[in-house]
């Protein structure tokens, strides 16, 4: 289902490195031999470099590649290069492009382009409703045949409960997941910032957490009623997390994702009025952030998703209220979470690696990147001691609306191998 350009299969030996593949139960110092892009030998080694970890490369279930329509902001080539720089071997692109990916023709063109240009494997989601208007179902069976990995109206909720029910029913024949952006528009309308003390003080129209959680509750109820699986995108509110946990405990096949920015920041950050801190859903309160972290730790939330949303600089260089929602994230996700969650002891590294790779692969039915003899090499080499300031090196993404600009982060990607080919190798390591 996923496509990437043909690259020469890597031939290399990574010696004396700590190998960490939680899903495979591997944590050992090994010499890893890769021949023509396939892992051929795993042998005990002796550690010769501190702070390096070799792990299964990451999988991002939520990326905006802006193609077709806004190739000035991102292309398949630039977005996948950014993904490779972030340690990803596979990403899933959302269909809210211009035109919307709601026909086999549009989807087919993207799949073809990915075959020529993608530095890492890309899968495309197709829309749930035509034009994401929430009125008519897309031709899901044909879209699935044409390569749709899953379905989503991301950017917008499926506002009508009746429409969502029909989508759940029909998607069942395609064996594809529905991934939902949950938002009750009558509660979020006009909102730019989480409804709380910060919005009250700054004067922003509030976007309350209940705008998300009522839609999460309703969607999960429908999934339970129809007996169909459901994936909830970019969870932000404690109440949504609680609803997801209850549904899973009750046996509903529900999964969820959280973004690095919601796991690290709260609405306090918005006080700077920096438009690079504006996203949908908005940054929420500390209790929401802690609920997300707890759910990521205990597995209620199985995926870290960047919701990488590139925007042209002139669109973000405006007053906060006029700026579009969205921030980039592919190139900084691991370092942001390592610095803010793993280093302070809030999240074990093993769990972070699982939620960034095996978790999303499992939820979306993708092949799991793994460190095992015979497996295609989808690996990331992480330098856990290297510190760098975000923005000092140019981004591979065409956009630079990062929420981390100017911040110094620990943990850098030293090598990415995607689909057996070297997809990213910074100059420093090559030397």
């Amino acid at each position, binding site marked *: 289902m996923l496509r990437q350009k043909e690259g020469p299969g890597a031939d290399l030996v990574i010696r004396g490195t700590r190998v960490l593949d939680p899903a495979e139960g591997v944590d050992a110092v090994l010499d890893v031999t890769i021949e023509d892009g396939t892992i051929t030998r795993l042998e005990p080694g002796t550690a010769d470099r501190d702070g390096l970890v070799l792990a299964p490369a990451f999988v991002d279930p939520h990326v905006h590649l802006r193609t077709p329509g806004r190739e000035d902001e991102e292309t398949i080539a630039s977005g996948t290069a950014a993904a490779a720089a972030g340690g990803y071997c596979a990403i899933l692109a959302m269909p809210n492009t211009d035109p919307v990916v709601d026909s086999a023709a549009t989807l087919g063109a993207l799949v073809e382009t990915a075959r020529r240009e993608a530095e890492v494997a890309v899968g495309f989601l197709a829309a749930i409703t035509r034009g994401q208007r929430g009125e008519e179902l897309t031709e899901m069976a044909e879209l699935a045949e044409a390569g749709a990995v899953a379905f989503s109206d991301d950017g917008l909720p499926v506002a009508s409960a009746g429409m969502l029910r029909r989508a759940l029913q029909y998607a069942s024949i395609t064996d594809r997941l529905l991934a939902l952006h949950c938002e009750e528009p009558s509660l979020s309308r006009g909102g730019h910032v989480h*409804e*709380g*003390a910060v*919005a*009250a*003080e*700054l*004067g*922003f*129209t*509030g976007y*309350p957490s209940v705008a998300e959680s009522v839609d999460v509750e309703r969607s999960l109820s429908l999934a339970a009623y129809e007996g169909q699986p459901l994936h909830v995108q970019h969870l932000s509110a404690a109440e949504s997390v609680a609803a997801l946990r209850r549904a899973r405990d009750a046996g509903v096949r529900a999964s969820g994702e959280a973004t690095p920015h919601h796991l690290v920041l709260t609405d306090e950050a918005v006080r700077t*009025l920096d*438009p690079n801190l504006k996203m949908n859903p908005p940054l929420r309160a500390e209790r929401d952030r802690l609920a997300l972290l707890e759910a990521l730790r205990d597995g209620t939330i199985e995926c870290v998703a960047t919701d990488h949303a590139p925007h042209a600089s*002139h669109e973000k*260089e*405006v*007053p*906060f*209220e*006029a700026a579009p929602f969205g921030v980039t994230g592919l190139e900084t996700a691991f370092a942001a979470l390592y610095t803010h969650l793993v280093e302070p002891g809030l999240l074990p590294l093993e769990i972070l690696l699982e939620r960034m790779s095996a978790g999303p692969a499992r939820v979306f039915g993708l092949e799991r990147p793994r460190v095992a003899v015979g497996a295609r090499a989808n690996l990331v080499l992480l330098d856990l001691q290297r510190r760098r300031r975000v923005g000092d090196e140019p981004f591979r993404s065409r956009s630079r609306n990062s929420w981390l600009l100017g911040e110094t982060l620990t943990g850098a990607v030293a090598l990415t191998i995607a689909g057996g080919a070297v997809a990213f190798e910074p100059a420093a390591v090559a030397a």
Partner: protein
Amino acid sequence: MTGSIRLVKDELRPPGPPPKRHLISVADLERDDVERLLGTARTFAASLERHVKKLPTLKGHLVVNLFYESSTRTSSSFELAAKRLSADTLNVKSSGSSVDKGESLKDTALTLGAYDPDVIVIRHPQIGAPQLVARVTDAHVVNAGDGKHQHPTQALLDLYTIREELGRLEGLHVAIVGDVLHSRVARSLVQAFRLVGIHCTLVGPPALLPRELQAEMTTDIAAVATADVVYVLRMQSERMQAGSNYVPSLREYSARWGITPERLRPGQKVMHPGPMNRGVEIDPRVADSVDSLVTTEVRSGLVVRMAVLYDVLTGGPVGVRALAAAEVA
């Protein structure tokens, strides 16, 4: 000179220019700043009682007034304040300028910044516009109202008015009544009152009191009874369109929260930032009563804005003597 480059540690570098002084939010101010500004305003008020009202203080300085929203009081008083201080003024309004042609705020600010203005006074419907102007120009920026966020000079002129009328600030009780949710004036006042020790109560319909605002809030209009000053906010009719349902109707609003003579006791002062909707949030008898400070607020606006322009440019207190010296120069 060849050989090694000597690395200079940050603390050994010569200090850069001090950060530009802006007035963007009341949150930027300390109590001392408020005292200094009110003191400066008082000095200017004395100077305005002279026969020749113009002071040479800011001669040769350029003040740009950049207004993206309609305004009578604020724009006229900033313009007059700059002129009374002998600054050159340039007034740019969004209608009739390149903004009509779709020019972005950044580009408009860069364009005006090319004239090297000393101060840019900006009013804009969006929160954060003054910060953007401060980022892209070298001018001192004064916020004349940004969306629902802040209107710091209004808060200062209200403090000035209250002190002139009641003789003090600390320990007073002010009730702010009306649409707090959409009011940048209320947000600025809450912070300013906290700074000077005024006890403040916010009164209004439930949906117009911001959730989690750090302030004393009530829906009960009876709370105005104990206030020294009742500060009435404008009901913004554009916010009250049918279907928004913040309140069922303006009629119901006036019946429940309108400030009428019956709801006041003699001697209670009434303030309003204007423009007033007589008969909606304020009864005309109240607006025209001797206890109404509405026109006093307008007069205060001139001297407070003179003080703000002077203060951002000089960064220090202004004494009578310094003023006299400036007049001689």
